[in-house]
């Protein structure tokens, strides 16, 4: 397996607070990898360092062996969902995507195509401030696949989704993974992650505490049991 995403001794400090402490981990190609950890564990900070939005204090995070800023036309290589706030509320869903598409040299036809893929064609002309949280999440996913990337980095994509939305997301990720894409997804929804991901990275207090195949990590139990055992020290 080829390593697509690599965290190498990544450290991120905000003043005296250590958000990520010497994180070293790899993400293999063609797999869905779950990035788990309690609130404040450093998942989002690690992902922000990975995509160049936050500057590491030391160490590095790379995709295809390059820092995100060094990737030529990154939208065509890496699709990212960091939160559902990334869209201008007074613009329509289609307009928001057209702004992104223009910056990446992508035509408006592709915007219509991805809106259809995330089942938002009917709401394409509606202003985003009128979208439900689930619709905003799907719009974020549409933005992430706009450039038909090989890698997807998703931070809590299931946040705010109802059960039908979560089922839709699971199928969506499986379809993307089935076409050979590498997906790194952080989530709190452990039961859902157990059904969705192939590999797991577990982070706590900024440090990696587990890294491996889902079956190796959970053994005969559930992901939730394994997660609680590793993050709290004992099974709750």
């Amino acid at each position, binding site marked *: 397996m080829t390593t697509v995403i690599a965290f190498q001794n990544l450290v991120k400090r905000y003043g005296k607070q250590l958000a990520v402490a010497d994180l070293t981990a790899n993400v293999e190609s063609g797999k869905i990898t779950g990035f788990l950890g309690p609130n404040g564990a450093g998942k989002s900070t690690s992902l922000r360092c990975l*995509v*160049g*939005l936050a500057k590491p204090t030391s160490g590095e995070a790379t995709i295809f062996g390059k820092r995100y*800023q060094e990737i030529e036309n990154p939208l065509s290589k890496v699709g990212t969902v*960091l939160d559902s706030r*990334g869209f201008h509320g007074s613009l329509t869903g289609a307009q928001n995507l057209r*702004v992104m598409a*223009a910056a990446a040299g992508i035509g408006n036809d592709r915007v219509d195509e991805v809106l259809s893929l995330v089942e938002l064609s009917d709401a394409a002309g509606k202003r985003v401030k009128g979208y439900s949280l689930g619709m905003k999440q799907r719009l974020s996913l549409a933005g992430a696949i706009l450039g038909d990337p090989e890698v997807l980095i998703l931070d809590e994509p299931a946040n705010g989704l109802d059960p039908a939305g979560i089922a839709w997301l699971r199928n969506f990720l499986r379809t993307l993974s089935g076409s050979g894409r590498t997906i790194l997804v952080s989530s709190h929804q452990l039961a859902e992650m157990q059904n969705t991901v192939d590999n797991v990275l577990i982070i706590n207090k900024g440090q990696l505490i587990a890294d491996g195949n889902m079956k190796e990590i959970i053994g005969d139990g559930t992901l939730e049991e394994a997660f609680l055992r590793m993050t709290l020290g004992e099974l709750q």
Partner: protein
Amino acid sequence: MNLIKSEWRKLIYARAHWGLLIAATFISTLSVVVTPFIIDSQGELFGFGLDQTEAVDSTYANGISGYIFAIILGIMLMAGEFRHGTAVATFLTAPKRGSVLAAKLAIAAVGGVLIMWVSAGISFLAGYVTLMSFENVASPSENLFLNTMIASTIGGAVLGVIGVALGTLVRNQMLAITGALVYLFVIDPILLTVWPDTGKYLPTGLITAMLAIDVDAPELGFDTSNYLPPLEATGFLLLYGAVFAAVAVATSLRRDID
């Protein structure tokens, strides 16, 4: 060119930006239309009447009153990215921040110029119609309209650039706009009146100097004889734009994007 196209789409898609154009046009037109009535009724205070060129020049010069909206546009183009959270998508799509800033500065400059051209053009027309309702109105100075359009072009572009820089430094949009308004409407005029030798180097004094109008109304704290020559004022205003653009690029390159 892709980033320019993307920033252009942001400019024209957001309804708030069209609101700024309408507001700038309204303020400029109102200023130009009201001035002849004030001069006509308070001629003694000003020391001149509408039968004198400086009165007519003063009337049309108010056509640049919409300049504040050029700076607000620049602030909204940058600080709006942080207000709406779109900065994340912007810098994920184009992680080379210097290129994004360059495109944003260019579009803010174009947007500032468009605001100034439209608001000044419509207010000139309104001023012309208004002045026709008075008798014995003098003709404006020969180069007034040319000078005003040059001042609108350079002033609009530079103020748009300054707005982007302010939006980069102060990511809170409301705080940045309030600060700009307080500076331009309170601090700048006070400095211009109390310390004219210093004030003439500030943005308002420089833009007025570019109009090359000759107005002496000491009762109103307004005497253009102290102002810089138009070319010198243009140079200083462009220098402001360059310094603020450099500050914007340097600031955006260093800070994390939330």
